[in-house]
């Protein structure tokens, strides 16, 4: 395994590579390709953190926990609430910030605060030839040149190995509440979440659990902010959602946090053995799609825009997605179907050509993305 300890060594490791490299941070997310392992864990540490400017810069191999701890000490956080893949994948290791970026890992707050790529304001990376490239920077508004920062987020190491990342961070909410509706069908749950998300009350999480801890369905809507404001908005939401059913408001911060960590980490699928797929669609398309897939179990996040499904191993859920706009990624399981959603021909061509430009030898996580 190659473990460079600075950016220069990383560049050398890549330029002198003779064959495919399998790029990884902590290797917790199940996206390892074939090839000589190259880990970024030797590039570690927060190099700049200015709470008053809401900006943080860190080396790619920095453990995500270190970053979250540093932010928490100043009452701030990463806005996009990255999932920890270890429980559902049963993987070991320490997740890194570079891995989060490379996989554009975004959790429940995606619907309010954006995806990982929306908070990312700068990157440094090494392309497939060993060239060090910088894009973006440490300021949160920047339109100088093309936005390769976004291109790198979610490129799964196929365009370059990220060595440094810069983020716009946000104040952590001092208080949170969860509005809970019991017993909804999937279709009604989506309607309720849509109404909440279409309200002025600044919802920061909307999930539906078809089989809750006590066996009945529960719809969860999160509010965050200052205590009085959270309580006010929770009550307002209760009023506008009244017709949907019995509504409870959870105000205990520990319970709210626990509930959303449970959703974030797709906990219903921990310890099961089917394949897991993550599907992104327009929320109103979600219930019908789920009915078509008929999964063993499922979970809606992002107001229904994100569906987690578990199916018998080897099942290709994409067959059900014909005529539905969206895409799906296999998170767990092997099967014949590609991990990532096949692109329309012209888009596939653009993707392929971009990868060729950045990695002409095709050595960075080859064939991971297509």
């Amino acid at each position: 395994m190659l473990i460079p300890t600075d950016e220069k060594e990383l560049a050398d490791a890549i330029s002198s590579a003779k064959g495919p490299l399998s790029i990884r941070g902590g290797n917790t997310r199940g996206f390892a390709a074939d090839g000589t392992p190259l880990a970024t864990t030797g590039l570690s540490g927060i190099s700049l953190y200015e709470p008053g400017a809401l900006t943080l810069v860190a080396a790619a191999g920095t453990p995500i926990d270190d970053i979250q701890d540093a932010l928490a000490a100043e009452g701030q956080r990463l806005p996009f609430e990255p999932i920890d893949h270890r429980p559902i994948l049963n993987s070991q290791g320490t997740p890194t910030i570079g891995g989060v970026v490379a996989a554009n890992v975004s959790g429940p707050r995606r619907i309010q605060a954006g995806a990982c790529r929306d908070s990312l304001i700068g990157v440094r990376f090494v392309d497939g030839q060993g060239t060090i490239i910088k894009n973006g920077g440490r300021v949160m508004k920047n339109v100088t040149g093309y936005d390769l920062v976004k291109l790198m987020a979610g490129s799964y190491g196929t365009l370059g190995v990220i060595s440094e990342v810069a983020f716009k961070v946000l104040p952590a909410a001092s208080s949170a509440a969860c509005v809970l509706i019991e017993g909804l069908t999937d279709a009604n749950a989506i309607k309720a979440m849509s109404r909440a998300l279409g309200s002025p009350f600044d919802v920061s999480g909307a999930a539906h659990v078809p089989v809750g801890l006590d066996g009945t369905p529960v719809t969860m809507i999160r509010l965050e902010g200052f205590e009085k404001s959270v309580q006010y908005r929770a009550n307002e939401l209760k009023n506008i959602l009244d017709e949907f059913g019995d509504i409870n408001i959870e105000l205990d911060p520990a319970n709210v946090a626990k509930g959303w960590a449970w959703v974030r980490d797709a906990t219903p699928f921990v310890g099961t053995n089917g394949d897991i797929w993550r599907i992104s669609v327009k929320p109103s398309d979600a219930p019908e799609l789920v009915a078509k897939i008929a999964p063993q179990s499922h979970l809606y996040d992002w107001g229904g825009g994100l569906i987690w499904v578990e199916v018998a191993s080897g099942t290709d859920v994409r067959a059900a997605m014909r005529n539905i706009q969206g895409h799906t990624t296999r998170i767990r399981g092997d099967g014949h179907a590609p991990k990532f959603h096949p692109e329309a021909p012209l888009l596939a061509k653009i993707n392929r050509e971009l990868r060729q430009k950045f990695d002409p030898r095709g050595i960075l996580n080859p064939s991971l993305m297509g």
Partner: protein
Amino acid sequence: MEMPIPNADILAKKSRLVERLLQVLPNEAVIHSENETKVYECDGLTAYRCPPLCAVLPASTEEVAAVLKICHEMNVPVVPRGSGTSLAGGALPTADSVILGVARMSEVLETDYENRFVRVQTGRTNLSVTGAVEEDGFFYAPDPSSQLACAIAGNIAMNSGGAHCLKYGVTTNNLMGVRMVMMDGSVVDIGGAHLDASGLDLLGVICGSEGQLGVVTEATLRILHKPEGARPVLMGFDSNEVAGACVSDIIKAGVLPVAIEFMDRPVIEATEAFAGAGYPDCEALLIVEVEGSDQEIDDQLDLICSIAERHNPVELRQSKSADESARIWLGRKSAFGAMGQINDYMCLDGTIPVSELPHVLRRIGELSDQYGLKVGNVFHAGDGNMHPLILFDANKEGDLELCEAMGADILRLCVEVGGCLTGEHGVGVEKRDLMFDQFTATDLEAQMVVKDVFDPKWLLNPSKVFPLSASEERMAS
């Protein structure tokens, strides 16, 4: 500013080009007589002008595709244009190029409140996107000050921001999908009503690519429900340093205002003379706006005021009504006009780390003395996006050049302290030749290979963004 010499071969085939364009577009959509093409000779950066070879105004994606196909076959450069409000010369034509304006494509194609998006043709103006949904309580968040005029097309190309982007983000954070015509006439759909399209984030790189990767004809935009209300507080301070420290303390306290606007003395004085908003006589002024219910607003403003008190403000005026809010915003909203009353001005757009604010303002003051040109600063303080307005006299020989030199120095200063050349206006031609101050040749090469993929012949909006010395080889071949 230097532009390449127009290609004589292209100039020579104008009549053949026009003939072919007329085969795919109605007569009134092809503008080729010299007195009419003049309308398109510049954008919001009026210092540079050059009428195009001709201009076309297609009415559909199919017509855009037909035009691009012809231009691609004939090797004629194309400059996409929305409303022409770019302050960076992004839509500046060259004499051998076709202006492709999307102004006639302004329909709303789909409105979906349940899934919270609208799909529009990109010639639609920014404000009229909100206009189409506001009766139902919704709005489109990015709000450039030019929103009455500028089109979604230009917003996407420049990744435009606005006063409220501290909370809602800029265009790229609110754009879910596009339909785009590539230079060879093929049409691609990227993203859509679902979140985070599959594959590489092409949407992310198209947004902000200044019309160099394709012509965007349709956009899927995220819409939000309007907040219950919004009100600002106005605060005046004795020095820029103190105002800067106050901004930082507000952010550190965990409040996230929707806007934090900063004005310095020259701008305060100019707006007072122009609009008479009743601003205090002070060195620096902040307008901080928050949103929510009445009670939520009061609570947040109380907290913000208590932070401001620690910095001994010379004035602290918390709005209690829509009327008072309008008065607080009046001066800020007329700032550009007010400066324009004094003289011509050049508006810069560098961004700096917020912590560098006092230092940068001091250095700008020194540069102002050194060059003998007055500068006013009015900007989005929460995100460090500066807008120094340099006053000059366009009719005075050498003043524009002096102003440009000073502007370049200020932008270099922004880069030096860890910031960038442009926060929301784009590079265009204006900042093109400063790109080497921010990027190395390899950094720029990595951007140019993206253009190679989308537009291998480099026909779309050439001579912009990249220094000519960096792109000339590609443009020649």
